[in-house]
């Protein structure tokens, strides 16, 4: 038997692990991420001399069905031209038959890492609104993400926010595909209920991440998963952003899910989020989809209303409270107005003497 030195062994493990890009225009640089379905590498597009992220299925001798799913994921992304969604450049096939696609290489940090820094509430909410806008754009194109979580949101060095990993996205646009299509990839944390067929998309197969999944999604009720399921996940992301706490992992029991996901906690030892935002989280993460915001756009509007000091859908206020809040928000203007009124009154009262 051939004896292999430690150095040869290390080299062999590395070269056999790395994908063979022979015959493509890409040159491999390094691995940058790994998920349940595939691995993402940093590669160089040699003719254009630019760096791209290259995603390849891990499976050797990839089944056609799985290849089709990766292609669908690439097509989903290709349809979503939005500043908050990473653009796809190219799709292709390696010499070993594995399908790959390339996308913009995003330099940035995952949201869960980004918020480890002390960020003001307004910045956290700005990131959240940008996230909602990207998801709302996808919803407008009849596409559900189905695995929204801080690990799948990137924040760039200039504050740009990108929603990543559309591997388990679901296309609802029958007119475009001829049928309802499910990319059904296996992202991190996916919970295949059927060990024999982890990619299956029938009832009972759970795709998503515990804690961030809507109850109907956790139960594998595929027919009930709609944009409001993504709204639930966005609510969980908001909770994470405001409390620093990961929503509890209760993927199947509805009551437990919501018991564990009550917003609370603290950010950096300070008191928890304002009551209004807690109400927003509760509404977004309502057990019954009917009680949630209908769309991600509606949720973004709600946060914008909070930022503008306007009344929230999730937090009705009495006229007294509303008036008090109005006065507090426009304190300077009110003081000026009152001062003006008082001065005018005094002028009227004593000016005629």
């Amino acid at each position: 038997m051939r004896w292999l030195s430690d150095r040869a062994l290390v080299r062999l493990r590395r070269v056999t692990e790395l994908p063979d890009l022979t015959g493509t225009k890409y040159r491999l640089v390094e691995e940058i991420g790994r998920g349940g379905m595939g691995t993402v590498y940093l590669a160089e597009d040699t003719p254009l001399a630019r760096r791209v992220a290259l995603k390849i299925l891990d499976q050797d001798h990839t089944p056609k069905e799985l290849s089709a799913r990766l292609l669908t994921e690439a097509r989903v992304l290709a349809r979503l031209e939005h500043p908050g969604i990473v653009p796809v450049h190219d799709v292709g096939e390696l010499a070993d038959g594995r399908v790959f696609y390339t996308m913009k290489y995003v330099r940035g940090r995952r949201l869960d890492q980004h918020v480890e820094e002390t960020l003001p509430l307004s910045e956290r909410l700005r990131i959240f609104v940008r996230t909602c806008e990207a998801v709302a754009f996808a919803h407008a194109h009849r596409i559900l993400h189905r695995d929204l979580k801080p690990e799948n949101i990137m924040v760039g060095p200039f504050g740009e926010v990108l929603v990543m990993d559309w591997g388990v996205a679901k296309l609802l646009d029958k007119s475009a595909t001829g049928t309802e299509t499910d990319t059904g990839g296996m992202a991190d944390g996916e919970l295949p209920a059927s060990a024999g067929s982890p990619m299956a998309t029938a009832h009972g197969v759970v795709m998503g991440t515990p804690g961030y999944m809507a109850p109907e999604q956790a139960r594998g009720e595929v027919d009930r998963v709609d944009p409001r399921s993504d709204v639930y996940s966005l609510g969980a992301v908001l909770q994470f952003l405001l409390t620093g706490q990961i929503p509890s992992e209760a993927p199947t029991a509805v009551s437990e899910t919501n018991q564990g996901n009550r917003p609370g906690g603290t950010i950096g030892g300070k008191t928890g989020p304002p009551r209004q935002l807690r109400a927003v989280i509760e509404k977004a993460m309502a057990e019954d989809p009917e009680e949630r915001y209908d769309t991600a756009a509606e949720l973004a509007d709600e946060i914008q209303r909070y930022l503008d000091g306007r009344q929230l859908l999730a937090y009705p206020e009495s006229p007294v409270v509303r008036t008090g809040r109005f006065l507090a928000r426009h304190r300077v203007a009110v003081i000026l107005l009152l001062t003006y009124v008082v001065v005018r009154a005094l002028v009227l009262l004593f000016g005629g003497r």
Partner: protein
Amino acid sequence: MEDDTRIGGPEGRFPVTRWTVIEGVQSDDPGERERALGTLAATYWKPVYKHVRVHWRRSNEDAKDITQDFFTRLIEKRYLDSYDSSKSRLRTFLRTCVDRHVQNADRDERRLKRGGDLSRLDIDFVGVEEELARKGLGAEASPEELFEQETIRSLFGLAVDDLKKECEARGKTVHFQVFEAYDLADREDDRGPTYGDLAADHALAVTDVTNYLAWARREFRRLVIERLREMTGSDDEFRREARSILGVETG
């Protein structure tokens, strides 16, 4: 580099269909069991021998006896009947069996150099001591790490042998030579030949070197996977091992 070890039994064979040594060792057919033992020993005799030498600090001669005896008793005592791939990896199970075997041998103070109705394995231990000397007997790796490292070394070494045979059979000896020069040499990564050097050595275009190397690596990986498939007890274990050793899921 010359082959330094000769293993008896049917090593070198690998089935096209899904066949595992676990099934073979548990078979009632003596021929099938012998074949399985040969395959198992081809991959594991060096890890076992080195484990006994390094972890148990046995002499060269004692380690040879223990290794020989372990594989014959593996079948005689049906050690693998209690193996459950959902609970542990085969190599972890085997290392535990070796430890128990050494303890029993100490207790009994005897080692049977026979294997029931099986012929004794023909293991040529020449060269294995040299390998140990290169690494050093006082290697800092834990017993688990050493056993894993040596198992992978054996697995890859056998796959290299398979690749060489395949290249010879398919008239692709230059492919193997390029692979050998670039990937198998004991050198630092930045001290080896360039693609240009290899192209000049073998009168090839540089693009041919790229393609030959890519082909050889692809075949090598396939052969490792085939060996691995044989040496694991279940599809789950196979996938875990493939991911651990090659970083890939395998279908």
